[in-house]
């Protein structure tokens, strides 16, 4: 399967590489323009809708307040949850979680060395 290096037609290989990568870029660049145009159009149509708002009834106000949360997709909710989790993880300092008791023989509180307690004995 593996041939000798010299057998490779380098001009063809480089041409295919350049053309292939160029076309990938060109296609995705076209998609960028499509999406940008599409986004502009949808924002314009959104503005038109907001310019002529429907009269809001008393009942619709709380519904409107809840709507964004209800319309959030599962991925959005997951992202919000992750962000909150990571944020609250960073609120506290990280601790080693290792509990140690350091015995100090010369401490003033040490029972055996304290003459007051010894005298009580």
């Amino acid at each position, binding site marked *: *399967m*593996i*041939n*000798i*290096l010299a*057998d*490779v037609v*380098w001009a*063809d*290989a*480089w041409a*295919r*590489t350049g*053309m*292939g*990568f160029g*076309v*990938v*870029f060109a*296609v*995705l*660049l*076209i*998609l*960028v323009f*499509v*999406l*940008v145009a*599409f*986004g502009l159009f*949808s924002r314009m149509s*959104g503005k038109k809708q907001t310019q002529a708002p429907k009269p809001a009834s008393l009942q619709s106000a709380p519904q409107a307040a809840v709507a*964004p949360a209800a*319309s959030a*997709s599962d*991925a*959005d909710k997951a*992202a919000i949850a*992750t*962000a909150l989790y*990571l944020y609250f993880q*960073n609120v506290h300092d990280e601790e080693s979680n290792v509990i140690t008791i350091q015995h100090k023989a010369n401490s003033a509180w040490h029972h055996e060395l304290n003459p007051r307690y010894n005298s009580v004995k």
Partner: protein
Amino acid sequence: MKRIFCFIVMLLLVSVGCFADSFDFGEATSKFVDSMGLVQVFSGDGWKSLVMIALACFLLFLAIKKQYEPLLLLPIAFGMLLTNLPGANMFHTEMWNDEFLNPESPFYHSYRHVLAEGGLLDVLYIGVKTGVYPCLIFIGVGAMTDFGPLIANPKSFLLGAAAQLGIFITFITAHALGFNSMEAASIGIIGGADGPTSIFLTTKLAPHLLGPIAIAAYSYMALVPVIQPPIMRLLTTKKERMIEMKQLRTVSKTEKIIFPIAITIVVAFILPDAAPLIGCLMLGNLMKESGVVDRLAKTVQNELMNIVVIFLGTTVGATATASTFLDISTISILCMGIVAFGVASAGGIIFAKIMNLFLKEKINPLIGSAGVSAVPMAARVSQTEGQKANPHNFLLMHAMGPNVAGVIGSAVAAGILLSMLGK
């Protein structure tokens, strides 16, 4: 009790005596012994099967113990085990390579012959050969993908495009190592970090390399958290990694519904060879976003996806027979696979840095590496690395844009390679 036992023995002796003329005891025993896998392992090239069985067990260990992409690695490894069991005859490489692809053979492109003569895995492999399984998986992937971050920030498409550099650099490298154009393209597509796309293209261009390429693609995808961080740190400064990005705009439901339809039409008009993959991806996404076919969306996300993953994984593993896998080219493919992943990640990061030279609102270059598909692992790596540099950095949704753009980009790259090199 003794009498009953004696009666049975007598009966056996009499029956053996009766059939002695037509039944050759020695020949039957010899046939049975010859058919035993244990005997076949220790004759001729049987040791190669043992090596492959050991390799399959190692991959099973990675899938179960280390949990490296277990959903696919486990069926792939077990398929590899089944195909290398001596004498089991579950998959016939010669049927697919020598007979199916040979124009002079009476069984050239004959699926009827496969159905009549093939083993279990041969029959299931028809779905791989016809390119059906990768497309069905793409429907499920589409139904599980949220293109919102990409619609909100279309520039992400460019990062997805830049990350396809890995495919084409590996294409040239494979040429340098002496692989022909079709083999080089199949090896290069590993850099797309997209299993179904790799399988789709390899089946069409170099089916004899399917086993090593699929194993390399899925293994390296599992290793994204190991491969990418050093490259990300090498190519970015701490200041760049600390860049905080503005929250993405909200994407309306209408935009999410029109997106899959528009992308399918635009891509198919420019590059019809990419239409099967892109079309299936967008069909699944439309099922999810339209909200009118919830049952179908759930089915393609779960039942269909799971069934196809079992068939695809097992049959792709089955192509890794000793004769095709234990070859110097397999080692080359595994080495080039990791190069492809590294270059793809680097391509995305470097392009993000180039974009920053022209953009008012800077983007964090770490999201560039998510341009390799590997959804959502690559985006998670960007998030983790971003947070290490700046705990207030939330890059996950920003990285999801290039991440899903990478899926589209690798499918487009596969389409281009297919149109240039396909028959």
